[in-house]
């Protein structure tokens, strides 16, 4: 609770003490997007498992639901951010008087009214689906009735289809259009994979915190192992997409595309390599053995590093295009804003966790999850 209070205060401090309003804005965007996405990944976790009729996840389901409860809040904050000038500050295509030829060609898509319509559709859609999925999950817990189970599956399928399209398009709108002259068809999936790895890492961290506080006794080593496998696998998947995008642009050497990495190599090379090390090298090497994934000893440090790593990934996606090499840095603004958002995210998550029993007792797959043991 105290940490949360500090967090919210840091947010204000970070916002006011920033050297240059553009840098403050970029940080707000970064953290807002990051934690909103973490919430969305929580929802993705629930829905993907529901649709594939998997059972073991039910023991940690409540944590994912708690993460997803941040979606409406993150969404509102983002909308306020855009409306209160964030959009004009960071996105050069909003500067409609001075658009060059290339950007003029994009105006049927990159114009403010259409942008806001899309943003609203996404944020509203996500929030509504998050609300109904959480509601159905709680209803299922009252009596375990089959109809709620089926409804959960249907809602999950709807969310997954909607999310597939909206996560990709929103990443174009909110992130890719920062470097509006550049484009990459893989971008949407790349950002998704980054958030996915970070989301799992965050879930593991929240699980650890809860278990340290004495809750969640129903979670056994096998569940932790599977979460560790996810972290390992998704980190590799992220690296695969990172490499695909990078190598293809490097290989064809088309200046229109390579300019994106040129600035990043020149002014942000430290972050560039930190990104790779934290998001790929660390989880790959540290989580390779079976035992490393079965206890929190290695899993937690790695999860923390992965969460930090993907923050830097977003940093590389946002900062070069908004602030550029000379003006950016890593200082109080960055740390303050991040702590602020982290505090808010934790506050919302824990409030949600407190509202329902931590184990979905009546879920048809819950008993399977309790007895969950595997042999490899």
């Amino acid at each position: 609770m105290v940490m949360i209070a500090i967090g919210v205060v840091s947010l204000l401090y970070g916002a006011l003490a920033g050297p240059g309003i553009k840098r403050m804005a970029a940080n707000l965007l970064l953290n807002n997007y990051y934690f909103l996405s973490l919430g969305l990944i929580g929802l993705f976790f629930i829905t993907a498992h529901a649709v594939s009729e998997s059972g073991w996840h039910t023991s940690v389901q409540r944590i994912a639901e708690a993460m997803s409860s941040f979606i409406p809040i993150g969404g509102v904050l983002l909308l306020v951010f855009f409306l209160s000038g964030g959009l004009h500050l960071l996105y050069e295509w909003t500067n409609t008087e001075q658009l060059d030829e290339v950007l003029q060609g994009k105006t049927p898509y990159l114009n403010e009214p259409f942008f806001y319509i899309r943003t609203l559709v996404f944020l509203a859609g996500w929030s509504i689906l998050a609300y109904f999925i959480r509601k159905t999950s709680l209803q299922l817990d009252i009596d375990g009735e089959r109809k709620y189970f089926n409804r959960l599956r249907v809602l999950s399928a709807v969310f997954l289809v909607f999310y597939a399209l909206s996560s990709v398009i929103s990443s174009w709108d909110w992130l890719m259009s920062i470097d509006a002259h550049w484009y990459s068809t893989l971008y949407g999936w790349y950002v998704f994979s980054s958030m996915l790895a970070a989301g799992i890492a965050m879930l593991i961290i929240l699980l650890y915190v809860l278990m340290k506080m004495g809750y969640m006794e129903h979670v056994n080593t096998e569940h932790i192992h599977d979460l560790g496998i996810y972290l390992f696998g998704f980190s590799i998947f992220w690296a695969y997409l990172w490499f695909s995008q990078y190598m293809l642009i490097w290989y064809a050497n088309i200046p229109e595309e390579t300019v994106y990495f040129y600035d990043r190599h020149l002014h942000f090379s430290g972050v560039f390599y930190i990104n790779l090390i934290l998001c790929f090298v660390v989880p790959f090497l540290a989580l390779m053995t079976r035992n490393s994934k079965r206890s929190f000893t290695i899993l937690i440090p790695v999860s923390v590093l992965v969460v930090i790593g993907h923050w830097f990934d977003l940093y590389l996606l946002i900062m070069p295009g908004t602030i550029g090499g000379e003006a950016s840095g890593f200082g109080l603004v960055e740390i303050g804003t991040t702590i602020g958002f982290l505090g808010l995210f934790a506050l919302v998550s824990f409030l949600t966790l407190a509202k329902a029993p931590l184990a979905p007792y009546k879920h048809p797959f819950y008993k399977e999850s309790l007895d969950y043991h595997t042999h490899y």
Partner: protein
Amino acid sequence: MYVSPIREPLVRGGKTYSQITKDILAPMAGRPSVYWYIGISLSVAALLFGAWAIYMTVYVGIGTWGLNKTIGWAWDITNFVWWVGIGHAGTFISAILLLFRQRWRTSINRSAEAMTLIAIMCAGFFPLIHMGRILLGFFIFPYPNTRSLWVNFNSPLLWDVFAITTYFLVSLIFWYVGLIPDIATVRDKAKSKIRKAIYKFLSFGWTGSVRQWTRHETVSLILAGLAAPLVLSVHTIVSFDFATSVIPGWHTTIFPPYFVSGAVFSGFAMVLTLLIVARKALNLEEYITKIHIESMTKVIILTGSIVGIAYITEFFIAWYSGVEYEQYAFLNRAFGPYAWAYWIMMTCNVITPQLFWIKKIRTNMLVVFIISIFVNIGMWFERFVIIVTSLHRDYLPSSWAMYKPTITEVGLYVGTFGLFFTLFLLFIRAFPVVAIAEIKTVLKASTDKPMQQDHE
């Protein structure tokens, strides 16, 4: 381990362990049915057609093909990518579903892996023959030579050599290691001396000891852990053949995961085509149940939708990029001279898999069979559209040309079908089509009637 009662059983009919052995070994015993003979006659005929086409290509020359100056790749590489894609389903079912602990894979993985091996052979054939001087095919490998020459490690075509070779060798070993315990079952049930001797040799001395089994599971798990990224990497490297270029419609960063999804998509369609027939013909409906077929259709919805999203992304970014060549490439695909191919592709790949959202359609074997064929046709056209439409009209209008396949090229493709079905029909007779030992491990948890004890 507790299994929730709302789950559907994976093995129907209240089988005992020995019944499982009997049922699965049945297709290998006795004389093959008349349908088998018809099947293999047709496939051998196709194979002979292919042999003639190879003769024409090697003896008369690559000029017997329809390739020309602008369109240097057409049916050859379309077929290559198509076959590699089909091969991916086997590894996906064996390795990735194992890692995701999906028990329904146990009745379909053996035949799917066999399908993978044969598909890789069919695929690998095309790069070899399209080089023209097939007798010098070994040039593609880096071996020390007196000319101090090495292969071009910078080229995706070479990465392909390593990828396909590795994929074939690793799939082979994964398939075989999994097969050893089942070969031992065949050995022990074999009545004739020759049969027993052959399977004894092939079974590598398998005794069923707990040590062998435990280590076998470890090896299977690690091989699955290796094969999963391998299968992703193989089709990724195949996509690099196109994406590393600068041609509009080819150079796009989404190709790697898009190709992989498309591969799993078409691979599962081929598995469905084969198994819907096989389960009826070999009396394995209680092992390859409607649940298995349904689960595969769900994978098709997933991968088909990913492919659909990739299409949408490509169009949009082509417009968004403002690059007129990129924009023309897509307009040409939809409205140019090959538009017919494009629309076949769109109907088959985007619309037909979405029908699987309807449960009635997912569980109707005939409809699933028909849709699976459409998906395979659609995916063939997807590769054709990507390759030929991007090549036939790229930057310089003066270089624009048209392409038509010749009978030789058609013959080569038909020949690979011959190879595929001949080998698959032989596989059915020589090895158990369902993984006997693996099915037995899921029996207790997933049967619909309690097991009766089978004493003698």
